[in-house]
């Protein structure tokens, strides 16, 4: 300890001149405050408050680097080391003393420079939580000054090694920034990058220590240790972070925090999901789930764009095989084809603009239908739908959409496309009419055929469209965000455009084409009404289920009980009920609370959606809640939580 204090005093005394620099800078700041108001429209206190902290930072940071360079690596620095070592001071002690004296002087100089500001605004530079990190930054700069000076003075061929590792470091840090930015939310990513940077700073400081402890005052030896310690110190944290991250991606996550999107294959066994795992990291990812074995596998696909914005997964699954197509990452023109059972991924480059999204996948994943939307990037070009061979990217057919949107639904036989034409740019603040057109492309054909075109009244903004046999069901809602307080218009048409059913239902109603007829669902008070009508609109059966107040339901057909509904209940929660027409009473009603732990972007824009057949596991319909997947068993009236597994919804 005595040797440390003596060495500290030695270096402190030797670099005492820096305090003069601090005092001089402080004096300049005083003058700026006194004479500045003559030139600028600021008060002295304002000038001091602005310039003081800047002077503090600039002086402290610069001095740390300069003192690092002068203390140990120059001829003078080597003499300091030899003198101290000659007095029996350990090399580590001498290094520590040089660092401590430099840090004290750097901070003291900064404080001297900022004195006017401190006088004007006491508490401006209050040591708080960031102060240790600031000291670490100063120490890292000091160490960097030492190491770079040692490297420069030795003029060694080790520079070749340095340049190689430096290049690798730049690549590794760039990759880390990309990975963190694209998988984690911006706050977590910057926090993790900061932590990694702090580790690197600590390692750089240690590299300086190692250089002195191993190289003593022997320049060539020290130079070798600079190369061995400095650049690995810069490279290794990035590699370690990347490696750790890769490890997380490779292994199946133990926890799934939230599910945001779910794309099952036809059998309901293999799922493509998007969501978050590792709650401490909030790692967003796409992953595969085998519902039978309950195994998860993360796909190495990012969830955010380069600006950190969450990027909702747009995927489509083949109608007969567990193959899905999705955009691998934002701005990437290629499409990834993923086997949902094995995770095997291939990429297809269709040679289309980057604003291309998979719309449907043909049987066997042979045909890929892509929605080209240049207007995503603000370009006023026509949208189009392009069908290509998945293997060769050879174009098969295309459909010009103009300003319309398109939604696809694939069956083993054909592709059906719902074209939604807005008369002007969509704007949720205005109520506008829209026109729905139905197109069909048989997989063996090369041209789209128009089946139907239906105009919707101007004040209906959102609609669900369902196809079954020769029928088309349109449930259109006037919607304002999630405030579904207005009536629902229900149409059932045949492909000739003849309206078979035309009903106006209460707000938040829904309907479905089923094997037994058209199922209508609407809430009233604390009950949900279910009514089965034939294609002529005649009631076949009806019941009311005590679900409590609900504001929107989803339906499913099940072999165990004819119909199942899952409704968003108020307050937050979900109510499930089963109904088999002909039986006296409805099945069990289950209410589960739903905890919103994760906020994916909220879709408030008016939209039209295809009603897809609901996936089932063992005859139990599966519902995607805002945070996870559940299966409802209509026979027992029980709800089984599928994902996440380790926490209540």
């Amino acid at each position: 300890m005595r040797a440390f204090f003596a060495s500290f005093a030695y270096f402190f005394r030797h670099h005492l001149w820096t305090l003069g620099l601090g005092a001089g800078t402080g004096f300049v700041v005083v003058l700026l405050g006194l004479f500045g108001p003559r030139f600028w429209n600021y008060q002295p206190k304002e000038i001091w408050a602005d310039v003081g902290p800047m002077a503090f930072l600039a002086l402290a940071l610069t001095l740390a680097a300069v003192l690092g360079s002068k203390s140990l690596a120059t001829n003078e620095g080597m003499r300091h080391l030899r003198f101290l070592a000659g007095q029996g001071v350990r090399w580590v002690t001498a290094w520590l003393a040089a660092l401590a004296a430099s840090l004290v002087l750097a901070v003291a100089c900064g404080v001297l420079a900022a004195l006017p500001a401190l006088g004007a605004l006491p508490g401006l530079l209050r040591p708080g939580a960031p102060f240790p990190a600031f000291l670490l930054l100063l120490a890292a700069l000091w160490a960097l000054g030492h190491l770079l000076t040692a490297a420069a003075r030795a003029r060694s061929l080790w520079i070749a090694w340095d340049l190689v590792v430096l290049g690798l470091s730049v690549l590794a840090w760039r990759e880390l920034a990309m990975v963190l930015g694209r998988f984690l939310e911006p706050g977590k990513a910057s926090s993790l990058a900061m932590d990694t940077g702090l580790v690197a700073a600590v390692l750089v400081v240690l590299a300086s220590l190692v250089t002195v402890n191993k190289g003593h005052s022997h320049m060539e030896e020290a130079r070798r240790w600079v190369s061995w310690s400095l650049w690995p110190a810069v490279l290794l944290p990035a590699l370690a972070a990347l490696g750790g991250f890769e490890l997380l991606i490779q292994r199946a996550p133990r926890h799934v925090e939230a599910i945001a999107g779910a794309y099952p294959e036809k059998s309901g066994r293999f799922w493509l999901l998007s969501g978050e795992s590792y709650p401490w990291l909030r790692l967003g990812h796409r992953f595969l789930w085998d519902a039978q074995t309950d195994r998860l596998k993360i796909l190495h696909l990012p969830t955010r764009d380069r600006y950190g914005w969450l990027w909702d997964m747009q995927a489509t699954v083949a109608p007969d095989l567990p193959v899905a197509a999705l955009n691998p990452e934002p701005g990437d023109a290629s499409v990834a084809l993923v086997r949902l059972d094995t995770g095997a991924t291939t990429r297809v480059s269709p040679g289309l603009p980057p604003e291309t999204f998979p719309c449907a996948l043909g049987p066997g994943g042979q045909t890929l239908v892509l929605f080209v939307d240049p207007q995503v990037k603000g370009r006023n070009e026509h949208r189009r739908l392009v069908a290509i061979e998945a293997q060769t990217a050879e174009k098969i057919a295309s459909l010009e959409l103009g300003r319309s949107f398109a939604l696809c639904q694939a069956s083993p036989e054909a592709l059906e496309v719902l074209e939604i034409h807005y008369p002007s740019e969509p704007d949720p603040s205005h109520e506008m009419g829209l026109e729905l057109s139905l197109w069909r492309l048989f997989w063996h054909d090369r041209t789209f055929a128009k089946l139907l075109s239906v105009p919707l009244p101007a004040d209906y903004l959102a609609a669900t469209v369902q196809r079954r046999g020769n029928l088309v069901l349109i449930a259109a809602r006037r919607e304002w965000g999630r405030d579904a307080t207005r009536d629902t218009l229900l149409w059932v048409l045949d492909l000739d455009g003849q309206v078979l059913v035309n009903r106006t239902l209460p707000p938040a109603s829904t309907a479905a084409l089923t094997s037994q007829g058209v199922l209508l669902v609407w809430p009233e008070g604390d009950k949900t009404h279910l009514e089965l009508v034939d294609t002529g609109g005649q009631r076949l059966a009806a019941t009311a289920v005590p679900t409590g107040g609900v504001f929107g339901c989803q339906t499913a057909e099940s072999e165990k009980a004819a119909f199942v509904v899952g409704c968003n209940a108020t307050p937050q929660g979900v109510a499930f009920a089963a109904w088999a027409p002909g039986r006296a009473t409805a099945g069990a009603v289950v209410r589960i609370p739903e905890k919103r732990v994760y906020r994916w972007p909220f879709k408030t824009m008016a939209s039209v959606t295809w009603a897809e057949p609901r996936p089932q596991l063992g005859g139990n319909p599966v519902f995607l809640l805002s945070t996870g997947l559940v299966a409802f068993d209509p026979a027992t009236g029980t709800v089984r939580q599928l994902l996440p597994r380790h926490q209540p919804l």
Partner: protein
Amino acid sequence: MNNPVMEVRSLSFAYGSQQVLNGVSFTVAAKTFTVLAGPNGAGKTTLIRCILGFFRPSTGDVRLWGQRVWDHPELCRRLGIAAEASDLPPAWSLAQLARWLHLAGRLTAQGQAELLETAVRLGLPPATPLGALSRGERSLAQLAVALAPRPELLVLDEPTLGVDVVAQERALDLLLGFLEETECTVLLATQDLTLAERLASHVVMLHRGQCTWSGPLDELKTSFALVTLPSAETSVAGGEVCARQEVLGGIQTTVRINDSKAFASWCQSQGLVARTPGLGQVAWALWQG
């Protein structure tokens, strides 16, 4: 040699591709005065820096009291060092330096006072920065500082280089006075062989980075003989010719004696008188060879 204070084993060192020391080995026994002699560029200062643990040898090692000095820098606390290229802080005065040495635990309060007394006795101004002193004064100051902690081993690198005769005598008085009081071991690196011969009990001869001789001074000197031969062609029995120099009356020849009896009888038969050479003459012969 039992428990040597210093062991240098097969020590080699290079600055980049320039080999400076090559397989140097010698030992320094306790309580001896060993002179490390060598011409300019022999590698004395580099060897001293390796001995002090400042430089890492490329091969071989240095042990002080049986421990590798590279790994045990604290051994330097038992050393007094006065190096040719002064590492004393030039901005500090002797008084400040004495205070710092006290703070560092190298000097007691009494030692601090004694150092200042010594400085005054040597005519050194205690309050003048060391950098402002003349070269001779600085050397004296170095020596005084090196002796002040009363070290067990004194390592001196050209302490009298550039020092005038008067200052040199003062320095020698100081050193000899110290050695009379203590049982300190000394390693003195110098090219001043007159001084070396005056002080040394043992000698290490260094030439072009190699140790050409190490051992007691007397042994070194009696291993060589100086004879004046009538001509350069004359062959020598019982020894080998190391160096020849033309002098009045013949060729002065330095002979390394291999067989002392044979050499003595050969001298007798030739009517030659063999003399014991001085250290300088031996060194000249060795370095020239």
